[in-house]
């Protein structure tokens, strides 16, 4: 078995009396899409934050590329190649779509402290950004102010910014949310290819997408992983059906 790119080991985190993560362990292997599902408030986003660095676990460790990154900041983890999208879009609304994408490229190049050369004239950066926009289908909108995008278009841009980082692993918090049926379908196809560039930890409530994409699924309930397995395993897992899927699956 190959070494996991990312692994979460016995992570716990409380908010007051609420246990948001309870001894969670999971990993992400090269080339896979590992879906993380679970009821609302189960602690998925909280776990993502602990992986990405916005929140420290009370106990447990996070390893990335073979290194213990638990004590590292978001910035340091991002520089190691952890690409993240947000559940609620975090974009520079006053800037153009292209500028948002270039920002990601800039971070990847790690050279924001240049004061003189106009950034838009930087061919390399621009190419990275435009490629990413093209891949999510936003290249036509490159010159538009981000605040003028519809909700769904912003979700696409979220993904594009993460792409420009050329990350070693993706962590995506509900990328499908807000995408229409066609958008979801398109993104599903896209993620399916993307997994070959870097594995994806995917939090998603869109079961069509999850079942179509996931190599493995972990189910988080009340901060605890109650099951990990293939699509089939999870679909037929009685407890998962009761706590999460309902009659749908």
């Amino acid at each position, binding site marked *: 078995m190959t070494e996991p790119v990312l692994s979460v080991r016995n992570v716990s985190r409380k908010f007051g009396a609420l246990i948001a993560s309870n001894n969670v362990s999971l990993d992400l292997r090269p080339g896979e899409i590992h879906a993380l599902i679970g009821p609302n408030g189960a602690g998925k986003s909280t776990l993502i934050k602990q992986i*990405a*660095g*916005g929140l420290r676990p009370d106990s447990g460790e996070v390893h990335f590329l073979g290194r213990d990154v638990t004590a590292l*900041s*978001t*910035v*340091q983890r*991002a*520089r190691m190649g952890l*690409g*993240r999208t*947000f559940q609620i879009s*975090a*974009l*520079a*609304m*006053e*800037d*153009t779509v292209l*500028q*948002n994408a*270039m*920002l*990601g490229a*800039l*971070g*990847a190049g*790690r*050279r*924001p*402290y*240049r*004061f*003189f*050369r*106009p*950034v*838009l004239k*930087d061919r390399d*950066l621009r190419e990275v950004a435009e490629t990413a926009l093209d891949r999510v289908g936003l290249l036509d909108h490159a010159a538009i*102010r981000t605040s003028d995008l519809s909700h769904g278009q912003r979700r696409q841009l979220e993904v594009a*910014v993460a792409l*420009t*980082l050329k990350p070693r692993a993706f962590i995506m918090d509900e990328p499908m949310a807000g995408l229409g049926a066609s958008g979801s379908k398109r993104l599903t196809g896209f993620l399916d290819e993307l997994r070959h560039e870097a594995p994806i930890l995917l939090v998603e409530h869109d079961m069509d997408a999850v079942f179509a994409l996931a190599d493995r699924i972990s189910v988080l309930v009340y901060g605890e992983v109650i099951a990990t397995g293939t699509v089939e395993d999870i679909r037929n897992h009685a407890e998962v059906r009761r706590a999460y899927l309902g009659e749908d699956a």
Partner: protein
Amino acid sequence: MSRETIFNAVLALGLLLFPLWAYVADEPFMITLATRVAILALAGVGLNIALGLGGLVSLGHAAFFGIGGYAMGILAHHAQSYTPLMEVPFLIEGTKSMPVIWLVALAASALAALVIGALSLRTSGVYFIMITLAFGQMLFYFAISWPAYGGEDGLSIYVRNSFPGLNTLDPIQFFLIAYVILAAALMFAAMLAKSPFGLALNAARQTAERVETIGITPYRLRLTAFVISGAITGLAGALFADLNRFVSPSMFSWQTSGEIMIFIILGGVARLFGPVAGAALFIALEHVLGGLSEFWHIYLGLLLLAVVLYARGGIIGTLAGREVAHD
């Protein structure tokens, strides 16, 4: 060329031609007035880097303005009285040379901005406004009660400092010095806004979380911007002191911070020429209205109100319209 660019060019040219006209028409005071506009605009250009680009609403930029002013005041005072500034551990003499004074003003205010910024940037939003105000006030009270350099009375430098090859006492020559520095600062600010740094800083203002997840530390971006901003405002302080041949703690007062900020808002926040337009309008109003009535502040207030209510985005915002920043 966009409307804003045209407007900026007109403004830049106007600020140059007006004093030249005054020179020909032998109206030396008009030159002084234009010099004042240029210098205060320079202070605004400094603040605008923090405020417009970085979203760092500092109500403490008077601190840097004052430090620049006192850098000039103290150096010139010692040069004038032939007393060394410092004897141990090594001898430092005062000076009356502008370039030296400018360097000292830049360095001193940058250093102050580094310290104040490092502490203040732990906070954000309105808290940031208030903590910068607090630092400004500390320096204000310190300057008032520090007897060595005149306390509240300030320091008078009877003769303007010198610049190699120029007669700084000639209003038009001093104006040109200020104008060239302002132009340089504007060019720098324009470049900064378009640079990778500007892009990142501007994004950090809008969504700091995102900037972190792409591997850039917002705190460091902001601190850098704050230091650059403070240094430019400090340089303006040194020039302002030289214009008046006088420094006093009022340069440190929160009203000074407020005034610099008002120039920016009036002209247009985050607009390259915002501070220039704002300072020019404000000083012109002050000059014209001041003669009208004892209660001219009322007219000034009404005019400012009209600008806020009907000229969205300041003067430049109104004339140039909404455009995507730094394209």
